[in-house]
């Protein structure tokens, strides 16, 4: 690690807005942070990068008073602070946009904005005043929000902007962003960065967490690299490049860069002509008869990857539901390998060979309350060899799980270890492995690499391309344009429940695509 130390010693900011010393945090047997030292200079944009589970979020939660360190100290503007709770952090001008959106459903956007520091006239909530300040903030971010709508109705982009406005509303001097870009379109990312720069220009300090090294280099002045809960280096972004950062993160030259670069490793055979999956005129109505999905005609041929581009909340969820069989399209028709499955449920479709890599593995992909086996066997528990006449054979259950663990290189204590104990990336590997193992005809992949680190991304991309090679049809839903370009043979754009455009793999016009995604093209305003 001498190299690291050499690098670290290069960066010594003058006035430290935030200073962490010897922060250590354990969760049971897991060491999330170990002796972490960190200095963040006032008025700078400082990035923290690291693999899944490297300890970034935990560190930030400690700074914001959401977790309490087992050891170590936090200093704000040179004064040591006992971060007992977020109140304390807020009182010291610290604000945080967490990795998982922390808006409170059931409350309106406006209520969420002012919560904790409400303008009020003798106890009564002064909505007018709040609305006024909200308007001003929105203007500063060049955005428009329906302030009286319940937050759950806002698009992800808007929700995040709302979270940023919350920090500004509180006039935080130190703003923490934990992987803010994972759910944003390229356009939105640019907007966000513009905002961050202007904030820094105001003299605010920004802590920025991400997996995406290029982003980091683009926005941050200084980058701290974490690995396995420790800080391995802090470097000036001017003096480094993605390759070096990746090496610092992972410890060895990252194959992902290769695996995912253009001219991907797996040979591309042309797709066959039979349709693996076909949607015909599918529509889904939401509350109040609002059309969530409308007139969807979409076919995925065997051996083809069809990418669905679009900002979250434009019908992706409903698309997944009707493909998987959680909802019936009305009207509309769904066929799997030529078989009409419009009226068959999830199980029947699973049997016909459709796989599903969910966007949120913890909710739809795994049972966090159970063992690793519990999550592993969900597609096979009900037939031999795992069970006969409804009786599970624990032996074969373990054997099967071990099989997955070995085949997909999952780091786990064993089949009976709690699912919780799997790290994010490993959990994702398990889910992907299970689905790939089960299917043949068609894979429905929703944001399969969201929040997964380079290593994991490479793994998942390889698997998808391999399946494609073997003649599986893949419907890939993602807001990561890079990912779509890399994998998809065709890309369709989903906007407000409709397919508003289609591009062949080698005829994509990024600007055009983004305009379609954001609705600029069709004239309407972004959902």
């Amino acid at each position, binding site marked *: 690690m001498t190299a690291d130390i050499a690098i670290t010693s290069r960066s010594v900011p003058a006035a430290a807005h935030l200073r962490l010393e010897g922060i250590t945090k354990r969760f049971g047997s897991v060491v999330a942070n170990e002796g972490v030292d960190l200095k963040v200079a006032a008025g700078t944009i400082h990035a923290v990068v690291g693999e899944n589970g490297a300890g970034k979020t935990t560190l930030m939660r400690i700074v914001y008073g959401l977790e309490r360190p087992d050891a170590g100290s936090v200093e704000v503007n040179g004064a040591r602070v006992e971060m007992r709770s977020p109140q304390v952090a807020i009182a010291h001008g610290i604000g945080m946009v967490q990795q998982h959106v922390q808006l409170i459903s*059931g409350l309106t956007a406006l209520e969420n904005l002012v*919560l904790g520091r409400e303008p009020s006239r003798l106890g009564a909530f002064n909505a007018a005043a709040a609305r006024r300040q909200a308007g001003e903030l929105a203007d500063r971010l060049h955005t428009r929000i329906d302030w009286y709508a319940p937050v759950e109705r806002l698009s992800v982009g808007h929700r995040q902007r709302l979270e940023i406005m919350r920090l500004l509303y509180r006039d935080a001097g130190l703003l923490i962003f934990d992987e803010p870009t994972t759910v944003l379109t390229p356009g939105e990312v640019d907007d966000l960065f513009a905002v961050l720069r202007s904030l820094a220009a105001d003299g605010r300090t920004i802590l920025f967490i991400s997996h995406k090294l290029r982003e980091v280099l683009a926005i941050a002045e200084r980058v701290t690299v974490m690995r396995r809960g420790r800080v391995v280096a802090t470097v000036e972004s001017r003096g480094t490049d993605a390759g070096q950062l990746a090496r610092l993160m992972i410890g060895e030259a990252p194959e992902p860069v290769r695996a995912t670069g253009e001219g991907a490793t797996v040979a591309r055979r042309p797709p066959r002509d039979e349709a693996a999956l076909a949607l015909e005129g599918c529509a889904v109505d939401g509350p109040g008869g609002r059309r969530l999905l409308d007139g969807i005609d979409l076919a995925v041929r065997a051996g083809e990857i069809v990418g669905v581009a679009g900002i979250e909340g434009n019908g992706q969820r409903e698309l997944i539901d009707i493909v998987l069989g959680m909802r019936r399209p009305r009207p509309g028709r769904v066929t799997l390998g030529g078989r009409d499955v419009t009226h068959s449920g999830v199980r029947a479709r699973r049997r016909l060979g459709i796989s599903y890599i969910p966007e949120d593995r913890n909710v739809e992909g795994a049972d966090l309350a159970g063992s690793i086996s519990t999550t592993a066997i969900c597609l096979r528990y009900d037939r031999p060899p795992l069970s006969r006449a409804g009786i599970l054979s624990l032996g074969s259950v373990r054997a099967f799980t071990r099989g997955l663990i070995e085949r997909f290189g999952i780091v786990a204590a064993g089949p009976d270890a709690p699912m919780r104990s799997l790290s994010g990336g490993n959990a994702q590997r398990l889910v992907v492995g299970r689905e790939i193992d089960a299917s043949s005809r068609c894979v429905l992949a929703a944001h399969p690499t969201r929040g997964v680190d380079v290593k994991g991304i490479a793994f998942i991309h390889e698997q998808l391309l391999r399946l494609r090679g073997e003649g599986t049809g893949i419907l890939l839903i993602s807001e990561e344009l890079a990912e779509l370009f890399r994998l998809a043979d065709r890309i369709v754009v989903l906007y407000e429940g409709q397919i508003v455009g289609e591009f062949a793999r080698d005829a994509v016009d990024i600007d055009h695509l983004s305009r379609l995604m954001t609705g600029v093209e069709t004239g309407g305003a972004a959902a």
Partner: protein
Amino acid sequence: MEVLHNTLVATALVSTPLLLAAMGGLINRQGGIVNIGLEANMLAGALAAVLVTWQTGNPFLGVLAAALAGTVIALPFSLVITRLGANEIIAGLGLNVLVAGLIGYLLPVALGVYGTFRPAGLQRLPRIDIPFVHDIPWIGPILSGKDPVTYLAWLLVPLIAAFLYRTTPGLRLRAAGSDLEAARAAGISAHRWRDLSTVLAGALAGIGGAQLSIGIVGLFGVGMIAGRGFIALAAFYFGAARPWPTAAAALLFGFFDAAQVRLQGQGIPVQLVQLLPYLVVVVTLTVVAITRARREGGVAVA
């Protein structure tokens, strides 16, 4: 018509304990806790009201005492849930058993009576006529001539609605109830707001008990709450924890309670008359849910 009128006249009065308890439960629910222990709060309130009224001769002090008693019981109950993560449902059931046990146990020790405490000449809450309203022919008796607590209860409905949706504490209380972690992250002492909601529930339920003991009958009996806490629970579930619908539900139950005694001896077997209100709850909930499902369209089939 006559019977209907009489039923309506009685309704407002018998609804009051339900209404107060349900309103308390509603606040608690919005604060993130489903309170099954309302029964216990009501019982404690009923006793406190009788004791203090008996000692001071002033029923209004009795009502205050009832609110206090409800609070005293609610706070530790809430702390066990919010701070020690006890399960709210079973803790609520337990609270009912515990409080009933304690009172039953201590009544003889302290007062030398058991089951029922009925001090002679106990002051009850006065019945008050609302000027003008009282003189309206048919309507008058229905709205007027009730005890102050009943009027207070109805006054509370808009007040609670305003509190929850128009004030800062209300906002924070709802925030804490809707998402504890997010509320903490927003810098709110979420647990404290949850506790507050439980305490308010205790106080309101306590007053409800008081109306029963010194508003209606003028005595305390260990069995006098007779499941009203559970009806209140049904009421705010019924009203989806929203003030006006919940109040309506409480009124509906009160109406059925009043109607039930008047429907007897009309040829229908008693027990069948008596199971009617409960059946109505089930049916109404079902109808509501189905229409909602229809409105929201595409029902998930999985």
